[in-house]
């Protein structure tokens, strides 16, 4: 009996020591990763796209030879400062809750006379094929840098979208019976070396949402929130929603609502 107790004690001590060294290693890894991220922050290639987006915003384009300078992103025509931070929101003129990308496409169609298929064909870039939408969203996003995210979802239509987003967030489906919440609904989880944010809290959702659009060094491109979320669906082995689908806007509404109050730091840069 005493022997058994001793064995157990030794076992506990060994486990504790082991856990201690793993923790120490974890924090060292975290420090080094933080250093890596810091080294990338100055000289974010997204800045190149921001400049391009600024040019595209004021350039007269499309069948109507008009610029986007009269585009209303929710704060009035041409008002860009802080516009990204308060989207998605309900727009009376379309009767829909729209995110920055669906609203931008709406402006390109109504103001510039483009066909929707035309402007969304290249909604994300491929090597050697730039995307105007990526550039414009980077530019619009940067105009909210330093502004707090503000999506209270108080309009009934917005509240409905936030609710729908929450439902999708927790809904398990697909061949792996997966939901967003499995990876992003708890504290202290990680995949490989990367921390997984708990997107159900203000902190977690804020950390995630404030840096988008973001330059992904692994892709060599800026990703918009639509691309991020559509690719999350793919990674969860779900069927991928169409670009600008309501399900994605609903998820964005839910996440921005959770992140409300967090100050934007965009464009971000990540692995």
């Amino acid at each position, binding site marked *: 009996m005493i022997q058994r107790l001793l064995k157990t004690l030794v076992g506990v001590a060994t486990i504790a020591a082991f856990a201690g060294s793993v923790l120490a290693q974890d924090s060292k890894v975290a420090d080094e990763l933080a250093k890596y991220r810091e080294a990338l922050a*100055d000289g974010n290639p997204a*800045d*190149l796209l921001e400049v391009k987006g600024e040019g595209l915003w004021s350039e007269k384009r499309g069948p109507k030879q008009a610029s986007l300078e009269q585009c209303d992103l929710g704060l009035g025509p041409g008002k860009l400062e802080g516009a990204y931070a308060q989207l998605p929101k309900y727009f009376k003129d379309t009767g829909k809750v729209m995110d920055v990308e669906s609203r931008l496409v709406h402006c390109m169609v109504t103001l510039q006379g483009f066909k929707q298929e035309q402007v969304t064909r290249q909604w994300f870039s491929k*090597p050697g094929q730039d995307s105007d939408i990526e550039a414009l969203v980077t530019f619009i996003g940067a105009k909210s840098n330093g502004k707090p995210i503000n999506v209270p979802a108080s309009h009934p239509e917005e509240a409905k979208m936030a609710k729908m987003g929450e439902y999708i967030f927790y809904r398990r489906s697909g061949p792996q019976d997966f939901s967003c919440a499995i990876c992003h609904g708890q504290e202290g989880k990680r995949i490989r070396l990367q921390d997984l944010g708990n997107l159900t809290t203000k902190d977690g959702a804020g950390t995630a949402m404030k840096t988008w659009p973001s330059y992904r060094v692994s892709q060599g491109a800026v990703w918009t929130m639509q691309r991020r979320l559509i690719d999350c669906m793919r990674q969860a082995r779900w069927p991928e929603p169409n670009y600008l689908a309501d399900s994605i806007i609903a998820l964005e509404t839910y996440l921005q609502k959770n992140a409300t109050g967090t100050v934007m730091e965009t464009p971000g840069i990540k692995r």
Partner: protein
Amino acid sequence: MGNPMKIRAANKDGVTEVKVLVSHEMETGQRKDAAGAIVPAWFITELVAKHGDKVVLSSEFGPSVSKNPYLAFKFKGGAKGEKITVSWKDNKGDSRSDEATIG
């Protein structure tokens, strides 16, 4: 011709620090596309920075410099308002020059 570079140049205590961000694919020639075909190499081979007419940095790149190359360096001299010119050319013969003013 490529997209414009982003060049920042700032003088502090007689030393000018230059930071350059270049828009370029920097394709290695070792990557395969979705169809399994090798994507041909396409990368900047030379990049030269000048302060006025004087070369302050002359570099040669291989394809292992990252996509959208970043470069930071310092030289003695330079004054606010003076020009920094950065030029690159790639292995396909494309080239580009951009200017910035020392701040």
